């Protein structure tokens, strides 16, 4: 497991940008910035006519590393330790669980907690707990 340095200022500033995006989406379009909700509704069945807007939001996410590269001349640090089987299983669980629970880190963790939603608090505590337990088992058992 590669060590990563403690970056409180950059992390809080980045968090503020995430918050700014969530506030802008609510102010301009009246929508919750929940990435699992947005991404899953790019797939059928289609319940409304917001497809193009959702695709544009996702395209903005994908374009962000390129913008950083254009401005700074390099891509930010990213270390993915998981191998192919773990990526597939992890992806399936993340996709299924976030839609089954109506939200992920952004929808429940950021927007829901900011609205003081009890459902989102229960969801956030639950996914933090199982994520931490999973990391504990993978890294410290055996």
């Amino acid at each position, binding site marked *: 497991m590669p060590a*990563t340095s403690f970056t409180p200022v950059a992390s809080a500033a980045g968090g503020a940008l995430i918050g700014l995006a969530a506030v802008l989406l609510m102010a301009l379009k009246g929508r919750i910035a929940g990435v*699992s909700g947005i991404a899953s509704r790019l797939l059928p069945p289609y319940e409304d006519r917001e497809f193009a807007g959702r695709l544009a939001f996702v395209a903005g996410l994908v374009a962000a590393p390129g913008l950083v590269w254009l401005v700074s001349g390099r891509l930010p640090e990213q270390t993915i330790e998981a191998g192919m089987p773990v*990526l597939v299983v*992890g992806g399936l669980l993340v996709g299924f669980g976030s839609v*089954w629970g109506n939200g992920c880190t952004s929808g429940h963790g950021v927007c829901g907690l900011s609205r003081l939603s009890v459902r989102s608090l229960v969801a956030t505590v639950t*996914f*933090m707990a199982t994520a931490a337990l999973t990391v504990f088992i993978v890294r410290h058992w055996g």
Partner: protein
Amino acid sequence: MLLQFIIGLVFGLGLIVSGMSNPAKVLNFLDFAAIRSGTWDASLAFVMAGAIAVTFTGFKLVLRRPQPLFGEKFHLPTREDIDTRVIAGPAIFGIGWGLSGFCPGPAITALGFGTAAAVIFVAAMLAGMWLARFIANRPSMSGIVTPADRVGA
């Protein structure tokens, strides 16, 4: 559409600047046993604090208005009950997050880094999302599971 693109871009930049887009950093935060050994990375607590501080304040100001600037109404979740789905879903999601270090936002942003790992993860994630919606939308499930809130941009 341009608006949503720019908002997505700001969101993605936030994920990158904060370090959330680096799975190793996420996993080092989730590794609470490392507090004793000194390799714990507390940064992600600051991401959440920064994001919630801005969103909490911003939502308070924005939701005073009668409607969004470019929309008919605010689409807010209305449910407040604690059903099995709002526990089982996040429990499953957390296991996948702890295995990989990716949650949905950073995973999609990682596509822009151009790695095969991100493509594989996002493909599996979309398959899982499709499956969850397929099961939830089956008529035979309507008596068992309560309908999801129709939110999300």
